[in-house]
C-alpha cells in the first residue's frame, strides 16, 4: 500500500500540516479511508482496537458453541447456531476492515494464537448451564451493543461500515438471550435457579467488558479525539446498568450486587465496587478458561492447515492446467 510511505513508522516527525489537515477532517466528521494519509499512531491504534474486537468475536464463538449440540429444542438449536455463526461472520468483517490498514489475516491470526493479542475477557468464563446462553445474549451482547452502536460513527470508514452491518445483524442476539431468560424465569423452580445462577456468574464480568474505569484507562483521550471512541468506559457502563436493572426486575431475578440502588439525585443506579484485580488477572491469562479457549482456536487452526494448503495447491494446479 503506497500511502504507507508517507506515514512514519520510524519515529520521525510527521508533517504538522498533514496532521492538522487530518484532525480537521475528523472534526468535520468526514471519514478516513484506507489509502488516505493517516498518522502512524492512528493506524496502530486502529489495528489494535479492531483486531481485539475481531478476536473477541472469534473466541466469543466458543462459550456459546459449547451448547449448540445440547440446545433443548430444534428452534433454540437453530437460533444459537445462527448466532454463533454471526459471530464468526462479524470477526470476518472486522478482520477484513483491519486488513485495509496494511496487516494480513495471517498476521492477525498469529497474534491471537501466540497469545500476544488481547480479546474481551468475558469469553474466558465458563458456560456450565443452558441459562448461560440466555445470560450471554442478554448481558454480554447487550454490553457489546452499547459499545458498538457509537462505533458505527467511527472516523475510519471501513470500521464504521463493518459496525453498521454488525449492529444490524446483532439486533436479534440480545433479544433471543433475554427471551431464553424469560422462559427460564417463568419456568420450573430448577429453571429459575438456573437463570439466577447464570446471572450471578455473568453480571460482574459483563460490567468489566466496558474496560477499566476512566481514571485508569490509558488510550481513551486520544481515541476520543480521533473519534474511534465516542463515549468513556464509565459512561457506557452506567448506561448499561441503567438499562439492565429494570429488565432483571421484570424477570424477578436478583442482580448480585447488594449495593445496587437508584440514586434519586442523579437518576442513575449506584453500584458496588468492581473487582479490577480479577479483570487484570483474566486479561493476563489467568481466567478460568483462557487456556482452553486459546487452545480450541489453536487446534482449529492447526487441524485446518492441510485444508488451506490443499485449497491453494489445487488452485495453482488448475491455473497451470489452464495455461498448458
Amino acid at each position, binding site marked *: 500500500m503506497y500511502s504507507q510511505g508517507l506515514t512514519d513508522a520510524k519515529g520521525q516527525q510527521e508533517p504538522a500540516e498533514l496532521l492538522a489537515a487530518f484532525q480537521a477532517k475528523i472534526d468535520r466528521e468526514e471519514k478516513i479511508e484506507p489509502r488516505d494519509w493517516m498518522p502512524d499512531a492512528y493506524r496502530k491504534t486502529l489495528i489494535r482496537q479492531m483486531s481485539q474486537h475481531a478476536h473477541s468475536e472469534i473466541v466469543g464463538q466458543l462459550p456459546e458453541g459449547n451448547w449448540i449440540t445440547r440446545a433443548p429444542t430444534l428452534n433454540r438449536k437453530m437460533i444459537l447456531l445462527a448466532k454463533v455463526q454471526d459471530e464468526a461472520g462479524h470477526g470476518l468483517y472486522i478482520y477484513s476492515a483491519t486488513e485495509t490498514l496494511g496487516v494480513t489475516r495471517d498476521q492477525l491470526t498469529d497474534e491471537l494464537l501466540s497469545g500476544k493479542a488481547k480479546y474481551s475477557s468475558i469469553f474466558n468464563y465458563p458456560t456450565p448451564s443452558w441459562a448461560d446462553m440466555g445470560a450471554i445474549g442478554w448481558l454480554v451482547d447487550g454490553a457489546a451493543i452499547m459499545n458498538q452502536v457509537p462505533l458505527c460513527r467511527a472516523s475510519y470508514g471501513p470500521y464504521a461500515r463493518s459496525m453498521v452491518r454488525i449492529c444490524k445483524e446483532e439486533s436479534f442476539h440480545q433479544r433471543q438471550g433475554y427471551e431464553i431468560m424469560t422462559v427460564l424465569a417463568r419456568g420450573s423452580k430448577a429453571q429459575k435457579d438456573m437463570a439466577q445462577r447464570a446471572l450471578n456468574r455473568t453480571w460482574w464480568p459483563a460490567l468489566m467488558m466496558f474496560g477499566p474505569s476512566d481514571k485508569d484507562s490509558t488510550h481513551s483521550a486520544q481515541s476520543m479525539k480521533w473519534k474511534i471512541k465516542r463515549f468513556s468506559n464509565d459512561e457506557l457502563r452506567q448506561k448499561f446498568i441503567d438499562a439492565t436493572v429494570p429488565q432483571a426486575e421484570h424477570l424477578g431475578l436478583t442482580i448480585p450486587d447488594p449495593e445496587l440502588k437508584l440514586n434519586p439525585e442523579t437518576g442513575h443506579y449506584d453500584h458496588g465496587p468492581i473487582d479490577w484485580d480479577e479483570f487484570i488477572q483474566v486479561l493476563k491469562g489467568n481466567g478460568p478458561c483462557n487456556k482452553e479457549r486459546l487452545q480450541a482456536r489453536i*487446534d482449529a487452526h492447526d487441524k485446518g492447515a492441510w*485444508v488451506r494448503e490443499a485449497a491453494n495447491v489445487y488452485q495453482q494446479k488448475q491455473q497451470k492446467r489452464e495455461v498448458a
Partner: protein
Amino acid sequence: MTGQFNNPALHSYLLRLADTSLTMGQRLAEWCGHGPYLEEDVALTNVSLDLIGHANIFYQLAAELHEHPITADDLAFLRDAHEYRNPIITELPKGDFAYTTLKQYFIDVFNVHLYQALSTSSYEPLALAAKKALMEVKYHRKRSEAWVERLSLSTEEAKTRSQKALFDLWFYTPELFETDAAMDELFVQGVIADYTEIKTIWHQQVEAHLQHCQLTLPESGWVATGGLQGEHSEHLGYMLAEMQFLQRAYPGCEW
C-alpha cells in the same frame, strides 16, 4: 392424496427423512467455531442450519400424522436410538475435514435426487417441503462436490485423507437406498420416490466424480444396514445423550 391421518407408514417415512437431516445437521454443527478457516466455518454452519431446518419441517409433518397431539421437539428429543430411523452413515462421528466433506457429498447428491422426486409426491405437504429443501441441497451439493475435487486433486496429504475417507465411508452408502415393505407401499401410492432409480443415478454421478477426482473405490468391507429398523451403530446413543440431555433431565419444561 388426503386423509393421511392414520397412515403409520407415512409417519414413519417422515421420521426417516427428519432423523436423517437432524443427525447430519447435528454432526455438522460440531464444526461451528472449529472450522479450518473462518470463511469455511460460516459456510459449514449454513449447511448445518439448512439441514436442521429440514428436519424441523419433516418432524412437524410427522407430528401432524400422529394419533396423539405431539410436537416436532417431542419427536426429536424424546425418542431413543432404536426409534431413530436414519441410515447409519449420518450418525458417524464428524471425523476430519476430508471425511466430513465426502460424507456430506454422498448425502447431498442423494438429497438432490430424493427431493427432486418427492417434489411431485401425491402428498402435497411433503411435495411442498421437498421443493423448498431441494433449492438448498442443490447448493450444498455444489459446495461439497467442489471440495471433494479440491481435496483430492491437490496435496499428497489431502489426497491420502480423501482416499481414506472413501474407504471408510463407501460401504455405508448402500443403506441410503434401502426400503421396507411400508415404503414400497407408499411408492405404489405415489407418495414417495423410486429409490431404485435414485440409486442408479446416484451411482452414475458419484462414481464418475470420484473417478474424475482420481479416487479408488474399496473392494470390500462391512456393508452397513439396520438404521431403517432402528438398529444403529454405537455412535447414535452418545449423540442423543448429548442432544436430548436437557429435555431428559428436566422433563415437561418449556424452553
